């Protein structure tokens, strides 16, 4: 028996709505969990380059005399989801330790490679490698998602960080990072 056209339309509408809902849930799931009150920075995309402006985060860090915990994640990166899930799962325990920090959530994609990713601070916009050189970070050779930087309010790195987050995905190790244990 043929389905009436209106039923077809209704079913299609339901599927589209469900898909949209799933997409929204997935999109919401990506990024630092809200419990950490992250300052989300979306890139300005033009001519194949994605530029993240750290200016507002720096200004706020100086105003509030807080450190910056800058997290670079990609929407399509499984390691990023894993770290974010770790943060989500342990939020009760970790959030109090993040209070001296402003968590900055730079939202990128894996397609944004080192030569396409730019960081802006004030008048200066540098690609990933040049930015790393400018702050004396050893992670110049390749861009790894996710990445974390720790800065003081003057954008001075507080500690050399590893590529990736795999070495601080336990509460104890996350606290090592927040306490700048080297």
């Amino acid at each position, binding site marked *: 028996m043929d389905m009436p056209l209106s039923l077809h339309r209704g079913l299609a509408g339901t599927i589209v709505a469900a898909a949209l809902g799933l997409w929204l849930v997935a999109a919401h799931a990506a990024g630092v969990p809200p419990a950490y009150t992250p300052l989300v920075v979306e890139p300005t995309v033009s001519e194949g380059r994605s530029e993240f402006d750290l200016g507002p985060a720096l200004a706020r860090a100086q105003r509030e005399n807080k450190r910056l915990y800058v997290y670079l994640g*990609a929407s399509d*990166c*499984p*390691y*990023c989801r*894993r770290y974010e899930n*770790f943060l989500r799962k342990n939020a009760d325990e970790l959030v109090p330790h993040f209070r001296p920090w402003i968590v900055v959530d730079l939202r990128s994609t*894996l397609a944004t*490679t080192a030569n396409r990713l730019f960081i802006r601070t004030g008048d200066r916009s540098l690609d990933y490698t040049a930015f790393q050189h400018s702050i004396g*970070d*050893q*992670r110049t*050779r*390749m*861009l*790894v*998602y*996710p*990445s974390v930087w720790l800065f003081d309010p003057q954008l001075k790195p507080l500690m*050399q*960080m*590893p*590529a*990736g*987050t*795999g*070495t*601080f*995905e*336990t509460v*104890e*190790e996350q606290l*090592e990072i927040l306490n700048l*244990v*080297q």
Partner: protein
Amino acid sequence: MTASLPRPLPASSRARTRRRLLLGLGALPLASVPAARAAVGGLPSNTGHADVSPEWELLRGRLFGTRPIAAGSGRVQLIAPLRAAYGASVPVKIVSQLAQTPALYVRRLHLLVDKNPSPLAATLELTPEVGQADFETRLRVDEYSHVRVVSELSNGELHMDSRYVKTSGGCSAPPNRDSPELIGRTIFKLPEPATMGAPSTADLTVLHPNDTGFELNNVTVMYIPSFFVRTIAVSYAGRKVFDADLDFSISENPSWRFRFVPHAPGELRAEVVDSKEHRYTGTLQVAVG
């Protein structure tokens, strides 16, 4: 007919035999594309730098038998970061608290990574010509592991220091392999002018992929065969400074910072052999200030 006694193997062959014995101790493959992997959450993080590991207990027996090893005696120090920028390139520094004199000197240094599949990263055979047995290099560290240095003195004493190093990765591209024509280029640099009669610092780099054999080619989905620098012999003005027996636990483009004592202007020379028996040479004329 007289039965001939077995001839002793040269040092490098002995080390190679030792390495064959040691290979296979590691349980996991070396980080082939190190930055494309990540440590499993929950790995031991409260391990002390001076702790032993089951792998070390095995290695110790195979390398040194029942000889006593003084840990933390201060004769040798290993400096390594708790977390390096990249697991494929962990900077390590060996500092010897002993001047190299003919009466007593560091005769051999063993550099080990407990959890790597081939844990013995390097064995350095030294002479007093090195002046000061301090070395720096970069290691591949596959997973959370102790890195150790065992210093063997000319009087037979063994001293050890160790550091616990945490590594993992994330999502990224594999190393660049666009310049195969450069493989084997052997480059010396002096960070500062050499000083007559005093330990002077030199940097040696061999451009080489130092492939582990565990790395998957993402295009062919085949493993890239192991291909690494096996030995380096460094001399100054015709006199041996040190010989290094190496493995793929040394990072891509193996580099060494070392000391030597120039007594007159001369030539620093490195003879390099890789696992395909390719031979490379690097030289530098040294003017002494």
